[in-house]
């Protein structure tokens, strides 16, 4: 068995507390290039909270987050450049065009070649013909594609996806599936949080089931029985 590549992003005993409630309770994980980590769990399990912490947008109550082995407290904010996030919220400005949105976020990430980069990325997600339209005139599925283009614009090493299938119709979901497969074959570390057990499981290399803030299960995909839905139900009920 080949030695796994060193983790780009690693969390050790991560805790997030709101008052006296623990949304994320001593979670440890390592994100390795080329692997997809699927995080499943019931509502309120803390999956989104965990993702926000990994993305650097939510403060960690206790525990450590390491980027290339360095604790983030020792780094300035620039480590966030290596992370791209797709959420169920689009993070877009409705009154700006697709291009303007990408241009804005590209600037935030310090990109210089946007005049070339943006058209190219829009082409990849099949949105070249809608580049000049305001985001509010796009359907949910198309907005999600823009969000994906935005997340990948700066070529992040780590891609975090939080319920990306939410609200998508069949066609849009198919497109997203295709995009995720492309991601999977790359050299990035991917985290996929989803309620969509079928797609999620199909795409994952490693499976985590989070219940009430903790990782109830954390295994390689081949250690999970094929009837994932049943397995998932058993774990969640068992942890209740």
């Amino acid at each position: 068995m080949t030695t796994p590549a060193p983790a780009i992003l690693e969390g050790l005993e991560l805790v997030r507390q709101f008052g006296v409630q623990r949304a994320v309770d001593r979670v440890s994980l390592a994100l390795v290039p080329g692997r997809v980590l699927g995080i499943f769990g019931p509502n309120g399990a803390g999956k989104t909270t965990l993702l926000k912490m990994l993305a650097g947008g939510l403060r960690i109550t206790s525990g450590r987050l390491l980027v290339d082995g360095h604790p983030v407290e020792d780094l300035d904010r620039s480590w966030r450049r290596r992370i791209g996030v797709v959420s169920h919220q689009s993070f877009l400005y409705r009154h700006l065009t697709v291009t303007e949105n990408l241009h804005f976020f590209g600037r935030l990430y310090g990109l210089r070649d946007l005049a070339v980069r943006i058209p190219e990325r829009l082409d990849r997600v099949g949105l070249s013909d809608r580049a000049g339209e305001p985001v509010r005139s796009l359907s949910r599925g198309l907005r999600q594609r823009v969000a994906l283009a935005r997340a990948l614009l700066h070529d992040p090493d780590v891609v975090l996806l939080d319920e990306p299938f939410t609200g998508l119709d069949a066609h849009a979901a198919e497109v997203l599936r295709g995009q995720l497969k492309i991601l999977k074959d790359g050299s990035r570390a991917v985290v996929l949080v989803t309620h969509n057990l079928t797609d999620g499981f199909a795409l994952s290399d490693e499976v985590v089931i989070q219940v009430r803030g903790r990782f109830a299960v954390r295994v390689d995909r081949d250690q999970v029985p094929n009837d994932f839905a049943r397995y998932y139900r058993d774990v969640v009920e068992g942890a209740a």
Partner: protein
Amino acid sequence: MVYLRLVWALAAKDLRTELRTKERISAMGAFAVLVGVLFNFAIDPTLVRAQDIAAGLIWMTIIFGGMLGMGRTFQLEEEDGALTGILQSPIPLDGLYLGKVLANTVLLGLVVGLVFFVFGLFFRLQVEGNVWALVGVVGLGLIGFVGVTTLFSAMASRTTMGESLLPVLVFPLLVPVIIYGVSGTARLFVGRPIAEVSGNLRMLGAFAIAATLVGAWLFRFVIEE
């Protein structure tokens, strides 16, 4: 340099959006004009000359009208979670603050222009003193006002009370701006020499600088989740 470009990118985004929606500017602008109209009815010309109290009325209109627009500073970001997207980006948080301050200053600057125009028209006001000194007084006061209010606007938008909390937090802190701003404006209206407002300019400048520096530094504690 890169930093300034970032600040500009942030401000430009806000201004571009405002250009398309015109939400805040129309609310503030309509407020300014209507207040002018109401003041006309509220002042008895047989008892007091409008020119005597114009400076005060103008500043109060700017402050109240400004509050209308400033309360929405961060609301734009809430809609589709764009603020989270920004917080997850590598930009320094004080840059985010300064971008907002810049955008708000431009927007409010337009409103200030409108207020002076409307009040000048309605009350037949004239500036006898140095116009540039007036621009200085009002401009510096504006920056101080925006600096403080932007910081607290980020706070207010995360409370259950929302925008209505903003005046309570900010008004006591703006007392120096009102005092130096109004007296400077009044003096320039009646044509006093610049020397008499140099103290005002200095104090307003100090307040503006202090407000933006302190705001930029404290902003990270307010905006992080």
